[in-house]
């Protein structure tokens, strides 16, 4: 039987699907109960000594168990919000309350005729309400339970647990009033401690309700662990009624006692499974927590290692480069005026390569820094920041003529340091790739797309072919040779990472010889 239980709900008894082993256990318990029932049935009418203490002891055990079960089920209802769970919890609350009333009205127990204005029929009728009522709750539970095992989806209107509990208690009170004050209107089912013929019809219908509840539980698939054990409980309930109200002759015979033992088993069944399952789930939670903890400490260790690595790269890899560059320079100085030109050329090559590797290392370090640095977003005046960067670029190359246009009043919520890195790269690229234009133009502006600010940096430079742009934002991927335009191929990767850290997005638009435009957003669209 395939069933899809959402992973987040799978940890609850009401949503856990049954395992084959549990099914075997449940069937075994039902079989043993049935066997005991068959053995006890012929002797159901055998009169046994009247042990008055048996009734209060038995019923207080019942009340305690049912109340705890109800509390646990209300607890699961609170978490899962499933209406069927609320109904079942009310069912248990119902049995607990009505058992109290039943004990109080039992004739000869607390008062000769029973408390609460009870008559000779009151207790027996309360028993019928009790044993007919609970199966109704179980039927409602099975009916409300969703088909596919997904609980929240099917529950349109949530129930209020307190209101339901109050209604349940009110219902019990109503039954108590009917059974005590309205006893004259009800047909007589007891004569002394023995049953009247009317009894069989009424108890038959009560028994039938229990049977229907078992069938309903069976039909409403898939079965959760709770369904399975509730089924076992209802079977015990069937034996209880059969022994203590159908096959026996009256109070204090073998059927009366044996049926009540079944009743106690029934009351404890769900509670026991709930507690066992809770224990198991708790153990699993502790285990999961531990493995989570282990994973996070592993992650921290890996991060630390990574940091140490990048530190080592920044520090230790630069030293040999410095030596290569410096001593090449020393050699160059020592080359006399008569030296071969190729000697100078080779030494220059060595120095250029060393310096380029130095630049690569610096860029890589900056890239990793952008990933590691904490994000501190604030309102940033992007117009001013962009103009400052463009002014710096112009200062560095005063001979160039570039028309720059930056939109007025551009404000963005971003980390100012990371935003500066992004703008320096995008504007720097625009500056660099328009270097062959006589009339270079760089534009920065904003478009609103579905309420999101999408900024753009546009230039009229050399552009590129979009077919090669697949890996534009991966480190070291370049679309131009170093001879054409110098660069390390890390700039756009850095830009991409800045955008990612702000949960934004970036895309490029370009055409060879017609410039490039980069659109980016620094928020989720």
């Amino acid at each position, binding site marked *: 039987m395939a069933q899809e239980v959402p992973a987040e709900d799978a940890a609850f008894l009401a949503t856990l699907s049954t395992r084959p082993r549990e099914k075997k256990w449940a069937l075994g318990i039902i079989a043993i109960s049935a066997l005991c029932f068959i053995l006890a049935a012929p002797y159901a009418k055998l009169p046994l000594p009247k042990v008055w203490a048996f009734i209060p002891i038995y019923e207080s055990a019942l009340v305690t168990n049912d109340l705890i079960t109800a509390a646990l089920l209300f607890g699961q209802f609170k978490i899962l919000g499933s209406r069927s769970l609320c109904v079942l919890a009310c069912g248990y609350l119902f049995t607990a309350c009505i058992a109290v009333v039943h004990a109080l009205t039992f004739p000869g127990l607390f008062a000769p005729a029973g408390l609460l204005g009870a008559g000779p029929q009151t207790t027996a009728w309360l028993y019928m309400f009790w044993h007919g009522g609970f199966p109704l709750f179980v039927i409602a539970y099975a009916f409300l339970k969703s088909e596919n095992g997904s609980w929240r989806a099917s529950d349109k209107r949530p129930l209020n647990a307190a209101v339901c509990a109050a209604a349940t208690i009110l219902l019990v009170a109503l039954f108590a009033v009917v059974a005590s004050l309205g006893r004259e209107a009800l047909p007589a089912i007891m004569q002394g401690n023995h049953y009247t013929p009317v009894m069989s019809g009424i108890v038959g219908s009560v028994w039938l309700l229990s049977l229907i509840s078992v069938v309903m539980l069976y039909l409403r698939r898939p079965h959760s662990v709770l369904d399975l054990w509730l089924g076992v409980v209802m079977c015990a309930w069937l034996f209880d009624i059969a022994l203590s109200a159908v096959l026996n002759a009256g109070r204090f015979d073998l059927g009366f006692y044996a049926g009540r033992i079944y009743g106690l088993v029934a009351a404890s069944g769900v509670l026991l499974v709930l507690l066992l399952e809770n224990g198991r789930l708790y153990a699993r939670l502790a285990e999961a927590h531990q493995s989570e903890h282990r994973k996070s400490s592993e992650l921290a260790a890996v991060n630390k290692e990574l940091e140490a690595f990048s530190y080592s790269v920044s520090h230790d890899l630069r030293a040999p480069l*410095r030596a290569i560059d410096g001593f090449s320079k020393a050699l160059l100085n020592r080359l006399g005026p008569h030296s071969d030109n190729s000697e100078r050329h080779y030494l220059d090559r060595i120095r250029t390569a060393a310096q380029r590797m130095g630049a690569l290392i610096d860029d890589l370090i900056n890239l990793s820094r952008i990933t590691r640095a904490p994000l501190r977003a604030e309102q940033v005046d992007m117009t001013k920041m962009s103009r400052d960067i463009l002014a710096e670029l112009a200062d560095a190359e005063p001979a160039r003529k570039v028309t720059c246009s930056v939109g007025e009043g551009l404000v963005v919520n971003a980390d100012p340091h990371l935003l500066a890195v992004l703008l320096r790269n995008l504007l720097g690229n625009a500056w660099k790739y328009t270097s062959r234009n006589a009339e270079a133009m760089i534009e920065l502006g904003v478009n609103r797309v579905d309420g999101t600010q999408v900024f753009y940096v546009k230039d009229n430079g050399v552009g590129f072919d979009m077919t090669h742009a697949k890996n534009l934002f991966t480190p070291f991927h370049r679309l131009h040779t170093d001879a054409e335009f110098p660069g390390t191929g890390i700039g756009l990767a850095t830009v991409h990472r800045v955008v990612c850290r702000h949960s934004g997005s970036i895309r490029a638009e370009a055409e060879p010889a017609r410039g490039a435009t980069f659109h980016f957003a620094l928020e989720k669209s």
Partner: protein
Amino acid sequence: MRTEQIILLVEDNDADAELTAMAFADAHIGNALVRVCDGQEALDYLFAQGRYAHRQVDDIPAVVLLDLNMPRISGIEVLKAIRADERIKHLPVIILTSSNEDRDRLAAYDNYANSYVQKPVDYDQFVIASRQLGLYWLLLNEPPPRR
């Protein structure tokens, strides 16, 4: 020019030490450059102990060029020891290192380094940096009065 005052270079890497000496020479800094190979030797020199026991503690260098990453005793430990000692706590210490990590810079300034300079890969830049350091710390800057 206080040419009698020496520059103490604390550098574990031989190539870097030679480069620094070369850069200072190319920058026409005439002061003698004494090189010690690690933090321990730097402390021995400054506190006139071990193989430098013959020195006078109050014969202090004009400036210390201090590398950070060194075996045994790190640059920061050396800096702490200098600042903790009454006799030499005013000694100008320039951190001269490959690292430009925030935490290194912070550790340096937290322990009252006078200056923090990252060694450039490009030798020409290094010469320029050396010249500026020499001009500033040996000529322009007035040291604390001798006690």
